[in-house]
């Protein structure tokens, strides 16, 4: 991106008045071009994958998918620079930790907004792809700290949708993706089993294998197979193998 080119910005906030105000500030800034507005996290992800903006002004506290959750779910090589907008002081500090360009505290003033734009201009010129991926990882970490996960974001083409955690029967992993099995369908979501194990409620999900997590209430039967290895059958009919490493966890399923 050259200096003369303007930065293409997307504004995301669930409150219409905040969206309106920040959009107006974007329009008034010659270095910025407003390419889209979203009122929730899913819309934001759809816009990001279709428009590939340079810069994201995004609220942290939003229904169903927070600003951190949105950034954590961004896939592919293109990761926009992020400016978090928040009314919560502690999120503001967290925003810096995860590697955001800046944060804006509500109510947003034109001076503060201009300063954020200037920072964005400098950062986007020199920013590396590694830095951008680090931002996604940081946001995922921040999102994990906000509490147990209740839904996964899944992408089909350029459309994103939610898979609520309580619909999931079992999960296995493939490289950096999780396969969320819901009935006879499987959804691909970003993440590792280790992360999933940390994010999910241990009272509802149990890891039984290096590459398998099951929803405890979907378990139909557990049979001993060979020493330390069990066959776990789910109500959906799926047959899963546990491994020795997780034998203790499986035994607890039996109680």
């Amino acid at each position, binding site marked *: 991106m050259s200096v003369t080119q303007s930065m293409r910005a997307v504004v995301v906030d*669930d409150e219409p008045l905040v969206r309106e105000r920040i959009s107006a500030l974007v329009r008034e800034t010659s270095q910025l071009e407003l390419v889209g507005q979203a009122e*929730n996290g899913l819309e934001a992800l759809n816009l990001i994958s279709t428009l590939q903006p340079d810069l994201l002004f995004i609220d942290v506290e939003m229904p169903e998918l927070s600003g951190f959750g949105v950034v954590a779910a961004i896939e592919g090589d293109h990761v926009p620079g992020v400016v978090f907008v928040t009314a919560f002081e502690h999120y503001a500090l967290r925003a810096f930790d995860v590697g955001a360009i800046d944060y804006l505290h509500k109510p947003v003033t034109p001076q503060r907004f201009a300063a954020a734009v200037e920072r964005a201009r400098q950062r986007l010129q020199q920013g590396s792809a590694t830095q951008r991926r680090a931002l996604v990882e940081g946001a995922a970490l921040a999102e994990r700290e906000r509490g147990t996960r209740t839904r996964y974001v899944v992408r089909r083409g350029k459309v994103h949708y939610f898979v609520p955690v309580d619909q999931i029967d079992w999960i296995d992993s493939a490289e950096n993706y999780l396969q969320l099995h819901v009935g006879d369908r499987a959804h691909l979501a970003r993440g590792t089993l280790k992360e999933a194990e940390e994010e999910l409620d241990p009272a509802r999900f149990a890891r039984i294998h290096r590459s398998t997590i099951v929803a405890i209430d979907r378990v139909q039967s557990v049979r001993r197979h060979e020493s330390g290895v069990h066959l776990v059958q789910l109500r959906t009919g799926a047959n899963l193998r546990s491994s020795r490493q997780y034998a203790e966890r499986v035994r607890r399923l039996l109680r």
Partner: protein
Amino acid sequence: MPATSHPTTRRPWVFPVAGWAAFVLAAIAAGMYAESPMREIIGAGRVAPRLPAPATDVSALLYQLGVGSVTWFAAAVALPFLAWVARRIDLDRQRNRAIAIVVMLLVALVLASGTAEYLLTFPSGMRPPVIAYVPMVMRLHFLPWAAVLGGVAVFEARRRARVAAIERERLRAEAAEQRLVALSSQLQPHFLFNTLQGISTLIHRDPQAADDMLTRLSDLLRDVLRNRDRTRVPLSDETRYARTYLEIAQIRFGPRLSFAIDVPDDLQRASVPLFLLQPLIENALKHGAGAQIRGGHVAVRAVRHGDRLHLTVEDDGPGFASAPMERVGLGNTRERLRAAFPDDHHISLGAPDSGAGAVVRIDIPWQEDAGEQPA
């Protein structure tokens, strides 16, 4: 509270000392009025090991009770010491020991004064047999000492009750103050900042709307400040506050939020704890419209059933079953209900009759607001 407003705490020694002086004077007066029981023994020159004759007048009655004897004087003089002992007994931790102390004290005092009188009254060689003297000792010594100890016990019990009441009151005031501190933080900063953000947007597009929102915010803040020194308010105050709060939220959330407040006019004068509804409404907002992309609805209702007032706050969010119980506002609400109506309130969480969502139901006694006195 200024120190001078409490006479009992200002000069705590006045009443005990005055009471003690009165007791000594009464004992002296009674001694002058009643015949000395000693005359019975000394005057007759013999021991009188018999039951006293029935009293025929006040003087005889006092005489038979031993009033006027040296023992009463001894008891009067010993009073401050007995009061001191009583004060040092810790009833909570050593009840049995306290009873033992009192019994032993009584026995020791009776024996001591009885023996002293026995030895002092009769010159050696002229002493009657001890056994013959026992009934008289019981009558003339046990009664005064028992009466004095009983009096001290009653006095001490009353003193302790008063101290406990003051302590209870102090704890209550302290708790109320703490709750109030917690309450002032109920209007959370993010609500303020989001509202200010809304105003700063509207100023550019619609100055009239910005002005309206600013007015509502002022109303809200004024209510918070005005009621800071009260623990009870009329329901009308709570309703007004809830309405203003939700109106502001509606401007912010736009069409994603709807709300309904159903409080009949004749219930507006009910007396309720300050900010009882506010945290519940904030929760309903947070878990309803604030947590759902499709938005949400908040309903506030008040109904009177005889001498009970039922308040409900309802949202159409995911409900209590699916949402973790992180509802900070509820702990606060429970605590405040406990303080206001210790054993006479009920709060329950559940699902609304209409189906999905969460509803908090509060059942408190119907009380009418008496007016503007600070609590």
